[in-house]
């Protein structure tokens, strides 16, 4: 469980987050939406302990990461799988070395064992291991890079929560589809909680059952899809307006799907 309590944060003088509080339960799938520069990535960086809030507490599984020593933070980060914006693959390492990074750095596993796991993981994220394992990240398409990054995060640790920073931004529709399917597969098959940060609303609506809208560093909305659609908050309305037509379509589609699959899964 991750809990943000009254977090205030700024990089310089300008406040970036103002009194942000929310809780993410285990197994929950949450989307944080908001325009560019609203502080979405900053929230993920805080959860990873890469930045320190000026005020407030950030509790991960009962431990306050803000007051932790670096050594303990390192331990805690093993519970978190982070997929950075645009992947953040190590560009001097091959795809295989990227995916096996954690095992190569932190375990005494033989190269053979690591590469077996890497091949398996690349298969899991839907990539042809044989073809790309020895190439450099630069040679991959944007969508493949995101999937490699997801594989790297999964193989690193046994995350109880995955953080995705703009996983579909800049991807074509097919690649977006693949990445979103992978995210949903992870959530459902491996029952890993997830927080996805995005300004692509349509993608957001596909994967989550809970939504947070962040506007100028404040939480403008926190609730379900249905509540989101009927929200009266002017900030939420303003944010949703450009997407309204496709929004209605997606909501209807999900309702229809929901009715169709109601018997199997009540949660989605």
């Amino acid at each position: 469980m991750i809990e943000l309590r009254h977090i205030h944060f700024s990089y310089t003088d300008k406040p970036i987050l103002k009194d942000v509080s929310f809780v993410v339960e285990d197994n929950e799938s949450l989307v944080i939406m908001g325009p560019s520069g609203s502080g979405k990535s900053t929230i993920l960086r805080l959860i990873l302990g890469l930045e320190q809030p000026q005020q407030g507490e950030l509790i991960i599984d009962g431990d306050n990461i803000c007051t932790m020593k670096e050594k303990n933070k390192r331990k805690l980060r093993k519970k978190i799988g982070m997929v950075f914006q645009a992947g953040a693959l190590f560009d001097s390492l091959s795809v295989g070395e990227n995916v096996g990074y954690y095992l190569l750095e932190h375990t005494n596993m033989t190269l053979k064992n690591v590469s077996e796991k890497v091949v398996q993981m690349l298969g899991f994220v839907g990539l042809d291991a044989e073809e790309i394992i020895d190439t450099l990240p630069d040679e991959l398409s944007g969508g493949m890079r995101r999937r490699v990054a997801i594989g790297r995060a999964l193989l690193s640790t046994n995350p109880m929560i995955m953080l995705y920073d703009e996983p579909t931004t800049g991807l074509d529709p097919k690649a977006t589809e693949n990445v979103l399917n992978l995210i949903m597969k992870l959530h459902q098959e491996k029952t890993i909680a997830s927080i996805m940060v995005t300004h692509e609303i349509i993608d957001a609506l596909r994967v989550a059952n809970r939504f947070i809208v962040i506007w100028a560093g404040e939480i403008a909305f926190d609730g379900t899809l249905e509540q989101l659609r009927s929200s009266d908050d002017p900030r939420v309305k303003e944010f949703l307006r450009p997407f309204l037509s496709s929004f209605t379509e997606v909501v209807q589609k999900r309702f229809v799907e929901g009715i169709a699959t109601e018997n199997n899964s009540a949660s989605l």
Partner: protein
Amino acid sequence: MAFFAAVNNWLKHFAYELQGEFLLALKTIAAVFRRPFYLPEILEQMHIIGVGSLYLVILTGIFAGQGFALAFSVELADFGAKNYLGRIMAIAIIRELGPVLTGLMVAARVAAGITAEIGSMKSSNQLDAMVAFGIDPIKKLAVPRLIALIIMLPVLTIICDFISLAGSWVIAKYIAHVTTTVYLSAVRDRLIFGNLFIGLLKPVVFSFIIAFISCYKGFTSGGGTKGVGRATTESVVISSITILVVNFFITKIVFSQLKGWL
């Protein structure tokens, strides 16, 4: 008053940078002695720094040695003291020219490379990714570069010294008409502990300067590609100037302390 405000701002900025560099230096030195040790990274950096700068250092060495020898030999000839050319060249090269030229060349090439690499890793979140995977970027990036520089810069300096002395030998023999025996014995005359000590102390100190400034500039670069470009330029300029200033003080201090041995 705008002038004073500007000076004040500049001083504040300078103090801030100095503090940052100092902190990074402390962290890096502390990290040198902590596990894990990244030997492959150290060897890779030694290769990049050593082999990569070799031609540059050789070229600089030849032409600087020849240029100085030419100037000195004309001047010495006026006093009928051409036979001292070897002594002067040995002192000039081993104490000053070799270390400074090598330091500046490596600062230009290696400091730029280090800052650009770390800066672009920062702007693409690779540094954060490292931290997220439990790796300390200072240990993984700064320490191997520092160690590689400490080893390779003295080696490059010795190579530069040799090449410069050889270059000035060519001038001594064919232009100043000093015989090889006379030139070499004059050089050997000055190959004494004090000179060699200064000549090797300097590159060790310069390697700290280059490593700390270039890593600091990389780690603190911001503002995307443009920011990395700016950080790279600053890294080269600041490390070059620092090398020149520190060089003067080393000569001055060591000179007064080692008087008997020079």
